[in-house]
C-alpha cells in the first residue's frame, strides 16, 4: 500500500535550536499537507504544498516540497517551548482520493 515515511520519530532540542522533520515517498506525490498536534490535543492543519520545489514560510516555520515531489520537510528556526508537539505530514498520490499520514515526529523543547 501507499506509505509516507517520516523521520525522525523523536527529536529533543534546547530552546533556540533549529528542528527539521522529513517525509519521503517512493513515488511522486500529488500534494502534501502538514499538521501539528499538541500533547493531548487534535491535529491542526498548518499548510498544503502542491507545486514541485515549492517553499512556503509561516514565521519561524519553513515548508519545502522536493523538485520530484517525493519528499517534503518542515524546518523550525529557533524553537520555542510553544513548538512542543507532534508534527505529521500527510501525502496524497494521483488517482488516490485520500491522504496517508506519516507516523509523526515528536518534538520536545527544553527551556
Amino acid at each position, binding site marked *: *500500500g501507499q506509505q509516507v515515511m517520516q523521520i525522525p520519530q523523536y527529536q529533543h532540542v534546547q530552546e533556540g535550536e533549529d528542528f527539521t522533520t522529513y517525509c519521503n515517498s517512493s513515488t511522486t506525490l500529488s500534494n502534501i499537507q502538514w499538521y501539528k498536534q499538541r500533547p493531548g490535543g487534535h*491535529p491542526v492543519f498548518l499548510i498544503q504544498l502542491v507545486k514541485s520545489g515549492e517553499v512556503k514560510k509561516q514565521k519561524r516555520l519553513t515548508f519545502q516540497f522536493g523538485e520530484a515531489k517525493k519528499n517534503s520537510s518542515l524546518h523550525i528556526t529557533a524553537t520555542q517551548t510553544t513548538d512542543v508537539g507532534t508534527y505529521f505530514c500527510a501525502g496524497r498520490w494521483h488517482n488516490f482520493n485520500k491522504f496517508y499520514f*506519516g507516523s509523526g515526529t515528536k518534538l520536545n523543547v527544553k527551556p
Partner: protein
Amino acid sequence: DAGITQSPRHKVTETGTPVTLRCHQTENHRYMYWYRQDPGHGLRLIHYSYGVKDTDKGEVSDGYSVSRSKTEDFLLTLESATSSQTSVYFCAISESGTGFGEQYFGPGTRLTVT
C-alpha cells in the same frame, strides 16, 4: 476551531460489544473522515464520506462500518469490539470540493476495549 464535536469523548467497553461513535459538524462540509491514532502509526483512515449516504473505505476499515444519513452526522460503528480496536478515534471534515483541502479535526474519542 471548526464546529466539530465527537461523542462520547471517552468510553470503556468489553470485547464483543457493539460501539457507535458520533461525529457532528456545524460547518456543512461535504467530506467527513474517521481516523484512528495509535503510537507509532500516526493517523490511519478508517472510512470517509463524500456526501449523504456516500461512503468509502480507508486503509484500516476491517471491523468498522459507517453511516451518514445527514450532512452533519457521521457515525462509526464497531459491530463487535476487539482489544485491537483500543485507540483514539478522530473525526475530520473538509470543505474542499474535491476533498483534497485542509482537514479540520474533532477533539477525539478515547476508546478502551477490555
